[in-house]
């Protein structure tokens, strides 16, 4: 049972403002993921919530209580660090016991809790191993176990899987999701892994340079990015962009002209935009279609065959590369001339300041 609320949180190191006024409310049981480029302030924000960094200004509320001045250990949170930060001089059991002991829990109760958690995480055989004797994945589990035994109101994770190899990361991701469903605890999770963000989050917070760019469900961000930054950041390979000229629009859509003179009628509203304004059309690689001839032609430069899918890199006449995601069996070869078809329903339109125009119809999965 815990809600977290951030009200205009700011953080200044010396003279530099790192977190520039972030407001956000996190519901009970919600799994919130912070994403953003390196150095955007994800860890700093998480650590401010944890109490490991002072809050320069603004309010932090947990369950409606202002906790700005509460010690980290008294906020009812548990944190899993990227480096795991296990106590190297204590065995697995003692690592998990430490917080409980400090909280004054009786011995019998501690033992019961730790054994229960160890069973859940399959750590039972290792309870009396030191962290140095464990593999990366096992250490990761211990770090999670140490967080779970304390039965915290909120879990904080700072890139917990980034030190694991790809296979293990995939496995732990699934386990963490399952664990979250089982425990139902409010969770804040920092990552820069797209897949983690998309698969685990109820709500993603996209940060850039200490500012929130967009908050929403994974599919909301995917289908309705609020601006160029989010459009570029969410989705892999990233969205393609075409420069265009706005020609006119109404409540059912907007007409734009692309470089090669072809016109596109995108179903987005563009209130108050003057014809002749330079805009940007965005479309994801998985939505572009290839044709043998037609408008928007270019030359295939690179083909990446990933098995299930094929990524076709097309060099356009203006020099930019457009990536098209095709079926794994597509036969196109390098150096052939192809033409791109942009289905208007999948196009996004961005104003000169980078803000996206409102789509006429919300995607059914991102209502």
């Amino acid at each position, binding site marked *: 049972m815990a809600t977290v609320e951030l*009200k*205009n949180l700011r953080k200044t190191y010396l003279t530099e403002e790192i977190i520039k*006024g*972030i*407001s*956000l409310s996190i519901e009970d049981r919600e799994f919130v993921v912070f994403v953003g480029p390196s150095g955007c302030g994800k860890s700093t924000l998480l650590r401010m919530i944890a109490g490991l960094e*002072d*809050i*320069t*200004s*603004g*309010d932090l509320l947990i369950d409606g209580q202002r906790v*700005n*001045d509460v010690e980290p250990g008294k906020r009812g949170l548990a944190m899993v660090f990227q480096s795991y930060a296990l106590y190297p001089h204590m065995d697995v059991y003692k690592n998990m016991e430490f917080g409980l002991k400090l909280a004054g829990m009786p011995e019998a109760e501690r033992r019961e809790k730790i054994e229960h958690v160890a069973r859940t995480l399959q750590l039972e055989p290792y309870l009396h191993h030191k962290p140095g004797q464990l593999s990366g994945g096992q250490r990761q589990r211990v770090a999670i176990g140490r967080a779970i035994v304390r039965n915290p109101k909120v879990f904080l994770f700072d890139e917990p899987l980034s030190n694991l190899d790809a296979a293990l990361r995939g496995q732990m991701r699934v386990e963490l999701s399952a664990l979250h469903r089982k425990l139902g605890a409010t969770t804040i999770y920092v990552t820069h892994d797209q897949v983690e963000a998309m698969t685990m989050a109820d709500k993603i917070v996209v940060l850039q340079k200490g*500012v*929130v760019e967009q*908050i929403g469900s994974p599919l909301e961000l995917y289908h309705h990015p609020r601006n160029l930054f989010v459009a570029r950041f969410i989705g892999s390979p990233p969205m393609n962009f075409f420069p265009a000229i706005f020609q006119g629009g109404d409540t059912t859509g907007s007409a734009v002209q692309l470089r090669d003179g072809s016109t596109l009628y995108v179903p987005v509203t563009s209130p108050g935009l003057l014809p002749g304004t330079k805009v940007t059309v965005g479309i994801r690689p998985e939505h572009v279609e290839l044709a043998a001839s037609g408008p928007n032609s270019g030359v295939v430069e690179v083909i990446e065959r990933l098995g299930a899918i094929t990524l076709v890199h097309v060099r356009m006449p203006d020099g930019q590369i457009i990536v098209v995601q095709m079926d794994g069996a597509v036969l196109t070869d390098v150096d052939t001339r192809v033409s791109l078809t942009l289905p208007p329903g999948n196009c996004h339109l961005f104003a000169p300041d980078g803000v996206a125009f409102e789509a006429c119809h919300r995607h059914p999965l991102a209502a």
Partner: protein
Amino acid sequence: MQAVLQHSPSSEVSSERRKNASAKRTGFLLLSPSVLLLLVWSIVPLVMTLWYSVQNYNLVDPTLHGFAGIDNYWYLLTDPDFLHSLLNTFVLVAGVLAISVGGGTLLAVLYDQDFFGRGIARIMVISPFFIMPTVSALLWKNLMLHPIYGVYSAMMRAVGLTPIDWLARFPLLTVMMIVAWEWLPFAVLILLTAVQSLDGEQREAARMDGADPIARFRYIILPHLSRAISVVVMIETIYLLTVFAEISVTTAGGPGVASTNLAYLIYSRALLQFDVGGASAGGVIAIIIANIVAIFLVRAVARNLEA
């Protein structure tokens, strides 16, 4: 959702300041016992020394008292013994540093090699560091270098040479050797550890690059040791500036002032001639010199110590 609420600085800012202040206060509280003690330890005697240094104060001649102004300093600075002892101090520090750092580096590389009984040989090499200065001075003066009964004299006689009375003929050099014998092991201890921490892949890479042992030493090992050398120079200088027992036991500063360093000169003024005023003036000068050295040394070495 990213509503930009109006900024209400008053309450938040003051709470932030409070919190920062509490961390600062904790830091200060934890540090203050050590700082206070060292402050007292360095200021009180310093002030007292300064006071005595401008007084006429001789323990055996109570008629001599009162304000002396800069007489004590003048007397000392114009005393050729003083300049001589100053020079000796520098020679001693520089000589021992050169021997222990230079020799220590070479020995560190030597004892990094694998050979039969290396572990025992290493322990033998570092042993002199554990010997107290009075003992090592007595050992060298009597058992080793005594012109008649010393082992070294016996060896010289055995090969047909006339034994030398080292401490009489080359007093400063001999004292330097004795002090170096004590501090070389410390340098070896630190530098050997540092050499061993050099990672094997780097050495192998250098070998693949075709570097011969001398090039490997010059371009791989030596740069790697710079930090450890700083540590050695730092700690040894601290002790070498104040070498006392070795001189007191072996030569008592003589003959004349040939092996008197500043520390011993002040000692002889204060405790042998009972001239508290003069000794204090010497003390002040010693402190000034130590601080000059400290500034240079700490500046030069601090960068390496921090990293």
